């Protein structure tokens, strides 16, 4: 069976690289550079992350994008031929949801593939619930999945939902 190319995207600091490191069964290709801006972490992705994961009978190739808008040319490069998109957002950072929406619109305008929204950081004190995020992003609630990108069992959930949309 053909491997499925999945784009993992979302604003900076949402945990895209973490997710791919958590899930990949092969050595992860990452491209971190020291961050010079206050983004709440020491490094940031400047090109891509890549990892692979077997889910049921499917082999997924996960391509993580940079989160910062100045790297939007990489969104373009990476979205070529994508069969599914996982948009990650942080429940504790509703101020980044508009940026998330812009990234999703940018990528779906180039790769019209099904997408799922993964909501992380729900363990923080002040959060928006997935239903509220779905409402804000104007997405059907069943496409908005809460998950923890650090936990191997939990991290797979939005991808499983995405697979249901791609290969029902």
């Amino acid at each position, binding site marked *: 069976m053909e491997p499925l190319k999945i784009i993992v995207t979302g604003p900076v600091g949402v945990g895209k690289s973490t997710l791919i490191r958590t899930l990949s069964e092969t050595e992860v*290709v*990452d491209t971190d550079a020291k*961050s010079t801006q206050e983004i709440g972490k020491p490094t940031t992705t400047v090109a891509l992350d890549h990892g692979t994961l077997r889910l049921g009978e499917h082999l997924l190739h996960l391509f993580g994008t940079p989160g910062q808008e100045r790297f939007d040319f990489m969104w373009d490069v990476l979205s070529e031929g994508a069969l599914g998109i996982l948009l990650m957002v942080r429940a504790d950072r509703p101020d980044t949801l508009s940026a998330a929406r812009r990234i999703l619109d940018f990528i779906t305008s180039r790769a019209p593939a099904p997408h799922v929204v993964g909501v992380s950081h729900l363990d923080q004190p002040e959060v928006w619930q997935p239903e509220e995020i779905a409402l804000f992003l104007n997405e059907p609630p069943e496409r908005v999945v809460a998950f923890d990108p650090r936990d191997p069992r939990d991290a797979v959930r939005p991808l499983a939902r995405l697979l249901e949309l791609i290969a029902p």
Partner: protein
Amino acid sequence: MSKKDQIDQILNELRTALPELKEIIVATPDGLPVAHVGGGDVATRLAAMAATAQGLGRRIAVTTQLGNLEEIVIRGDQAYFIVYAIGDRGILGLTTPAGSNLGLVRLEAQEYAKKLAEII
């Protein structure tokens, strides 16, 4: 003289040494423009692309066992885009027309990257 002025001065010297250079960009490792000499409003884009090239180049160098990355050369049929690390704190990116003396560009660029490393 401020750091920014010193960097600008070095870039101007580099431009004098290699007048054929079209764009010279100094960027942070995460792709923000620090200084730019050249025409047009391309600093933001060039800085981000230099960082992407550097990040990906480093990774390819490791994966394919090339040793430490020394330079990236992207050759079009009309010009080159060349990227050097400024220590581990910055990136120097240059565009120069096809037909430029690449050997000379390399020598000068590496020397100026060292000068920049002392300031940044």
